[in-house]
């Protein structure tokens, strides 16, 4: 842990900024749990609750940004303080995006109808949500405790999300080819899965920022990027 600042009010502000990120992270994580539950139970009321809560996350992001900009203007931070504050703005923006994806998930609750397709694939969606929730909570933990190893661990777990997504993608393609009736629900599920996969990318970015705050260098490892569905082909026959 770095030493305290001589101006203790600066430490207070930094701690407050961190506390806001923790609060935001907790809320975003909860959004995924709720969105998944809404999806599984076709719970439109819960889905609506998720959509409403997303506005709170947007406001939190705006407030964090405002406070951080104020600190830059008034405190002229340098070195790790500067990295910390600038990265916190980016972390907040990342969480806001991750939150958006949860909202998108909830939005689709009312449009997915076809029972069968959902029951087959929702287990994998559930798995993805479990992964992403774990990544969010761990990356926030890494941020607050300045735990670089934990950040790297989160960073590496993105490939799990990608691989579930890729297998789900193939599975849904098969359904769609077998029965055109599945096309609509399967497409919705595909969008949901893609959203969660994107959320994983943002969580990975946050892990990189945590690393940068503490080390002053970019996480140099090669990123296990890209979902391979970009290159998937359909056999037309």
């Amino acid at each position: 842990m770095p030493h305290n600042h001589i101006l203790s009010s600066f430490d207070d502000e930094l701690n407050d900024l961190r506390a806001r990120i923790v609060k935001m992270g907790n809320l975003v994580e909860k959004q995924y749990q709720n969105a998944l539950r809404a999806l599984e139970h076709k719970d439109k009321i819960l889905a609506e609750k998720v959509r409403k809560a997303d506005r709170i996350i947007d406001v939190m992001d705006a407030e964090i940004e405002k406070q951080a900009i104020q600190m830059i203007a008034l405190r002229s931070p340098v070195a790790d303080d500067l990295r910390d504050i600038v990265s916190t703005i980016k972390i907040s923006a990342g969480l806001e995006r991750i939150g958006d994806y949860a909202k998108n998930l909830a939005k689709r609750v009312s449009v997915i109808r076809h029972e069968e397709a959902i029951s087959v694939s929702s287990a994998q969606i559930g798995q993805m949500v479990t992964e992403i929730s774990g990544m969010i909570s761990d990356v926030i933990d890494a941020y607050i405790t300045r735990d670089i190893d934990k950040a790297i661990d989160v960073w590496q777990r993105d490939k799990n999300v990608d691989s579930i997504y890729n297998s789900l993608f193939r599975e849904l393609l098969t359904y769609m080819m077998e029965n055109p009736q599945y096309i609509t629900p399967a497409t919705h599920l595909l969008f949901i899965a893609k959203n969660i996969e994107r959320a994983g990318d943002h969580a990975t970015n946050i892990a990189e920022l945590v690393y940068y705050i503490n080390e002053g260098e970019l996480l140099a490892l090669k990123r296990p990027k890209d979902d391979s569905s970009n290159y998937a082909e359909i056999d037309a026959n």
Partner: protein
Amino acid sequence: MDKTTVQELIQPTIKARNVDVYYGETHALMGIDLDIAPKTVTALIGPSGCGKSTFLRCINRMNDTIPSCRMTGKITLDGEDIYSKNIDVVQLRAKVGMVFQKANPFPKSIYDNVAYGPRIHGLAADDKDLDEIVFSSLQRSGLWNEVKDRLDKSGTALSGGQQQRLCIARTIAVNPEVILMDEPCSALDPIATAIIEELIADLKERFTIVIVTHSMQQAARLSQKTAFFHLGKILEFGDTSEIFTNPRVEKTKDYITGRYG
């Protein structure tokens, strides 16, 4: 070839090697090694009493005037040992000018303040030549437009910021190679400070500048290289952009971010 490698090929203007300074029993500087690159601004930062001014005064041998002061080690300017017997200290101080914290114009006219150095060093062939030097120095110090109609008025009647620029004009009038500045803006308001900073940025095209400052923001804005002094030693020296985003030494970080060390 990238920028840093080009820079590294250029011979430093000033080289300090294993410099120790004592004031009687006080050991003010210990084993200072520092290369100062030509036509760059090098900032010296560090807590009060860490030896920044002492080091600055070594570079133009101002410490010679302090009886209790003793120095060991070596400082060269363009490869020449400035402490060797055949160095003319007066010539050295023309080559290595100094601007102080408190502007100290002579109680003479603005013109004479600037003409003083060129006169004693015999730099002007005639009056016209001297005019030329005085006018161009005032122009380069950014003071010309403000004083051109009152060159015969006393230098001490100018504002603090103007006085400081007058001292800079006086320093550059003898065409130095290096300009040393010891907290040149600490008595100035933000606008006067910004004007001096802009001037320093201009001056580095022609001169090598070493500046002591207690303003971290000023060091960050102005300099390309920063040396962090602590208890008589240099703990970290490097590119200013690196020092202020990612200092390598814990003590540097604590100092520039305002933490308890």
